[in-house]
């Protein structure tokens, strides 16, 4: 039996849903035009007045918003609400070391909690679930997003945060955890550790898990489901739009329903920027139509996927998205953390005399993402003493790790080891098989 958290909205007939979307879009455009200098200027420059948007198909007339816009207006320039009404910020890594900031009003926190509660129920949770939130708590939206949704649902919420795997397993067993929230790679790592620690699936009461913050595959799903004895659901979101809960799979696990009463999705061709038809693969773009803190118009996520419009067996009328199959920029997701190669480069070059030849090698070892950076070392920096090279290595590792919030290993290689490319340099080798 299908359970809904907000049934009226979740199974709303398309016709009524689209009418609601248009109303909300029009209200939003008037709101941001009045409140946000950035959008007023942007709309004026494109020669569009909020009142020009008469139907949902007019959405394509609106200008795009990019991560660069968020960076240029750091930290608060993208907010439409007055600062007194902003109750929280979250942030993710930007390309240059500056954070990408998202601001929330109480209204936005409430929306976010509700879409997360919808997500939990879509995956079979209820107020009697015991939900272990093993996403990181902090600026990253994973932890607090899942936490607030779980509490709103009335489930017992365990703010475990990430790491300390032994303790997590102990809690699974002792607290009778029914539901796990973490990255899919951490779920597999937990399965490995479970075996090592001598646990059996029967020691636990796990029923389902909500996995996201990084791309994963059907093969990983099968592994997670078999090894943990649970149903594994793909959850999607990004802090700019709201955080986790932008979309979620239902019990049929056939694509993630986008909560269209809050987030208007489009797929565009990342080169021509022209909208593509449902079913065609391209870049996912969102317009938030109910948020008040930092509403975004046609925000380019850089995530590549396609939309599925066929009705779903679960009864939800909201459109589904396929798994993310890649990015239209060079962003890497390492253990759920967004990392741009440019951040690594600038951290490396903060040390004088480092050769501009380096290679970022990403791999997944025992289900955990690892970054190794091969760096060529100049004769001038090279030394006959181990401690000097070790110090240099430690310094570089510290600089890069603190710049990207992910620990890295530096590996010095001789001059000429790293292939010189004729055209655009290849700086990243991603060996992960997802």
């Amino acid at each position, binding site marked *: 039996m299908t359970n809904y958290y907000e049934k009226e909205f979740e199974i709303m007939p398309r016709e009524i849903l689209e009418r609601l979307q248009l109303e909300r879009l029009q209200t939003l455009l008037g709101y941001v035009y009045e409140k946000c200098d950035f959008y007023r200027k942007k709309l004026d420059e494109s020669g569009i007045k909020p009142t020009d948007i008469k139907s949902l198909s007019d959405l394509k007339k609106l200008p795009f918003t990019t991560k660069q816009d968020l960076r240029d207006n750091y930290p608060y320039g993208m907010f439409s609400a007055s600062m007194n009404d902003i109750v929280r910020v979250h942030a993710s890594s930007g390309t240059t070391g500056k954070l990408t900031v998202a601001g929330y009003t109480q209204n936005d926190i409430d929306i976010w909690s509700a879409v997360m509660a919808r997500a939990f129920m879509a995956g079979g949770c209820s107020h009697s679930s015991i939900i272990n939130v093993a996403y990181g708590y902090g600026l990253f939206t994973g932890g607090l997003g899942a936490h607030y949704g779980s509490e709103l649902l009335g489930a017992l919420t365990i703010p475990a945060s990430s790491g300390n795997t032994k303790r997590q397993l102990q809690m699974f067993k002792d607290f009778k955890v029914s539901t796990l929230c973490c990255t899919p790679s951490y779920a597999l790592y937990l399965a490995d550790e479970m075996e090592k620690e001598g646990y059996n699936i029967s020691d636990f009461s796990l029923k389902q898990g909500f996995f996201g913050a990084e791309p994963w595959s059907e093969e990983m799903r099968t592994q997670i489901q078999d090894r943990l004895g649970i149903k594994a659901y793909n959850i999607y979101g990004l802090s700019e739009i709201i955080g986790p809960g932008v979309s979620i799979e239902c019990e049929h696990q056939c694509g993630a329903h986008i909560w269209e009463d809050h987030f208007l999705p489009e797929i565009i061709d990342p080169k021509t920027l022209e909208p593509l038809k449902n079913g065609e693969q391209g870049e996912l773009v969102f317009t938030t139509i109910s948020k008040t803190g930092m509403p975004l118009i046609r925000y380019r996520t850089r995530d590549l996927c396609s939309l599925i419009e066929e009705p779903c067996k679960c009864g939800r009328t909201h459109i589904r998205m396929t798994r993310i199959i890649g990015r239209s920029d060079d962003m890497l997701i390492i253990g759920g953390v967004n990392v741009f190669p440019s951040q690594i480069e600038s951290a490396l070059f903060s040390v004088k005399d480092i050769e501009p030849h380096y290679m970022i090698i990403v791999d997944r070892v025992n289900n955990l993402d690892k970054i190794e950076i091969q760096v060529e070392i100049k004769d001038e920096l090279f030394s006959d003493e181990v401690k000097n*090279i070790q110090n240099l290595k430690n310094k570089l590792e510290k600089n890069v790790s603190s710049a990207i919030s992910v620990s890295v290993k530096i*590996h010095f290689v*001789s001059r000429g080891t790293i292939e010189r490319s004729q055209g655009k340099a290849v700086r990243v080798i991603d060996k992960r098989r997802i």
Partner: protein
Amino acid sequence: MIKQISVLIENEPGQAYKPINVLGEAGIDVCAVSVGDTEDFGILRMITRDNNNAVTILKKAGFTVNLTDLIGVVVEDHPGGLANLLTVFEKESINIEYFYSFIPRKGEKAIMFFKVEEIDAALDKLKKHNVVLAETISE
């Protein structure tokens, strides 16, 4: 002072062979070798009979190369010979980073190579004692 050539090597099988082989093929005699290593990288240190050419050849072959001055000391090849020498270093508070040896031929005197913190000061101190410094590697 004796010139030492250091080469960066990765801590993987076959890595020490490569630079040694490059020099061998160029007809350069490598007299003494020592390795400083960590689990991640190694530093191959060598004393050769033709440093100038050795450096050029190694750089050309793509190695990361460094030249360092070492103190060479002739040591009597009998029990206690090295201990007597190290006593001098201790008395003079000369801090040794690392050292290794070279024995030209069986039965001949050995040469010890020392890397110290302040080489000029260390040389002055050593000269006050009955220490025989090696300026070159004898043929």
